[in-house]
């Protein structure tokens, strides 16, 4: 679908916004253009507004028009709606085979879209047999969990109809017996259920498990890391799966490993500073270079991107001399620091990558130290639907809050299972749900969930009492006494269990 792109001023846009739907007279000829939507740019480089267009017609004098210019008007656009959007670079649009780079006055272009599709609904992909069981359960009078329905559907044939009905009734009774009661304090139960096994966890910070040469934080420190929602975990690591067509090809896998590992100049070479000549010499360390599969030309390529230096390559000496264009000690020092961390190749953040083969399936998987989910998922060979990182905050920013919720659940479950501890999944699901409730990953504790309760008294009872009371005092906060802690403070029945139910006695009528 072709969209119309044009440049306009902010005043015109706000005028349009006020008066939509309206007719907008513009100074460019849109005779052969058919477009249902358009984008407005104010700086030629990116579009900031999205416009829905009803129709485009030839210019005709009329009173209700909004004019873009006073003279030279050629066409009228009937505008239905104007919306603010996050700036999109012009390069996201394509005209014919070329990407657009700038919009001078107006242009047409196709938004480059990779057809995204919603997943087919899980409900619709269900087996018909399972659907039947769900319908049968509904007749008996309850909603059956699908995991149970799947099991029942396998054995349905073996039962007589009367037995089958009785069986469903038994399931209903069992479900009712196991359900949690209204106003039960599930949070407290979850806290104790995770806390008690937590006391048995090892205090050792490091645990060498899984991949050799890899070092992943496990045990209590890892669990604390998860619930604290640390920005960067102490040992970020990724598990990278390759697309099925590549995962058995050893050469391709090793190539991916090379592509991943981030190599800087200091990893493969020494940098010598010559103060007299005001130059820096990069002396490649051959064993290290071979180990990391880097060649001199790779270093040269990387140096080309650095500004403010001139590079002299010396083939005989096998060293590369770099001279800052501006002669000063300060600049020399700056360039030296810059060269140290200059990436020759690889993905920033990934310190090491190791490929391992699964002996049963002969499929290779790559494990890394350090994590950079966004860039790894963009690699062609990588299976972007399975690749995983243990950095929860990164998952939240790359894949979204729901993925982060799943990651919290999986990571905490794995950490507990690693230590041989069994905690019911429901408790961990509750924690994961609470942490992601507000749309971002929040820590449990003072700075997170507990610190943001709506009740002043509950917050004051938890930590930093004076700060909360003082703040509530000058802001005039009101506490409706709906929670547990605040009701204990004032000496009322708490709003849990029977305390949450109000009974009203209606006298007998005489």
């Amino acid at each position: 679908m072709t969209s119309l792109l044009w440049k306009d001023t902010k005043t015109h846009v706000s005028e349009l916004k006020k008066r939509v739907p309206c007719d907008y007279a513009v100074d460019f000829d849109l005779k052969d253009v058919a477009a249902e939507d358009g984008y407005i740019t104010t700086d030629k480089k990116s579009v900031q507004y999205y416009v829905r267009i009803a129709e485009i017609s030839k210019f005709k004098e009329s009173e209700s028009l909004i004019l873009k210019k006073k003279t030279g008007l050629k066409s009228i656009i009937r505008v239905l709606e104007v919306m603010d959007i996050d700036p999109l670079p012009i390069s996201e649009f394509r005209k014919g085979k070329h990407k657009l780079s700038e919009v001078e006055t107006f242009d047409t272009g196709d938004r480059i879209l990779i057809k995204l599709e919603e997943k087919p609904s899980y409900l619709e992909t269900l087996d018909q047999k399972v659907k039947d069981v769900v319908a049968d359960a509904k007749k008996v009078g309850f909603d059956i969990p699908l995991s149970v329905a799947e099991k029942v559907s396998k054995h349905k044939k073996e039962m007589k109809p009367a037995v089958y009905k009785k069986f469903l009734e038994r399931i209903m009774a069992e479900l009712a017996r196991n359900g949690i009661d209204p106003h039960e304090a599930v949070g407290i139960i979850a806290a104790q259920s995770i806390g008690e096994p937590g006391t048995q966890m090892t205090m050792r910070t490091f645990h060498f498990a899984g991949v050799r040469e890899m070092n992943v934080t496990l045990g209590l420190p890892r669990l604390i890391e998860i619930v604290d929602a640390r920005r960067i975990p102490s040992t970020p690591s990724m598990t990278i799966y390759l697309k099925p067509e590549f995962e058995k090809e050893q050469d391709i896998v090793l190539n991916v490993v090379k592509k991943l590992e981030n190599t800087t100049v200091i990893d493969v070479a020494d940098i010598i500073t010559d103060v007299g000549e005001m130059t820096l010499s990069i002396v490649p360390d051959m064993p290290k270079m071979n180990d990391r599969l880097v060649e001199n030309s790779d270093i040269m390529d990387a140096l080309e991107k650095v500004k403010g230096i001139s590079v002299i390559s010396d083939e005989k000496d096998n060293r590369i001399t770099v001279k800052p264009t501006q002669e000063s000690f300060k600049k020399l020092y700056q360039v030296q620091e810059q060269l140290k961390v200059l990436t020759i190749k690889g993905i920033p953040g990934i310190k090491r990558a190791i490929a391992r083969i699964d002996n049963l399936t002969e499929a290779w998987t790559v494990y890394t130290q350090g994590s950079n989910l966004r860039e790894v998922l963009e690699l062609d060979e990588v299976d972007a639907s399975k690749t995983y990182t243990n950095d929860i905050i990164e998952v939240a920013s790359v894949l979204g809050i729901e993925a982060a919720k799943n990651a919290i659940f999986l990571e905490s479950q794995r950490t507990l299972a690693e230590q041989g501890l069994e905690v019911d999944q429901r408790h961990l699901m509750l924690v994961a749900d609470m942490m992601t409730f507000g749309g971002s990953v929040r820590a449990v504790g003072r700075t997170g969930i507990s610190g943001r309760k709506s009740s002043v008294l509950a917050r004051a009872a938890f930590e930093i009492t004076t700060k909360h009371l003082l703040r509530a005092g000058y802001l005039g906060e009101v506490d409706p006494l709906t929670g547990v802690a605040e009701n204990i403070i004032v000496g009322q029945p708490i709003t849990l269990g029977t305390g949450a139910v109000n009974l009203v006695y209606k006298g007998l009528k005489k």
Partner: protein
Amino acid sequence: MGKLNVLRHELVPEHHLVKKEDEDKVLKELNIAKDLLPKISRNDPAVKALEDIHGPLEEGRIIRIVRKSPTAGFSIYYRAISGEIFK
């Protein structure tokens, strides 16, 4: 190299946009006000992906999330798009 479809990732459950006319029905069924629903950021990658399918989405639209649950087969969850997410 194309744009990544986050909706395809294993960790990401189904996200569906709730039609505007169905929003009241959802809220009534849950017996809740819209601002009390769990939130999802406007800049959330999954919302961005939905925007590519449905066009721009304004704040307050409801997203139905169908999660695969280890205990119940699947469970339905709702989130409202919000512009003010504090980190």
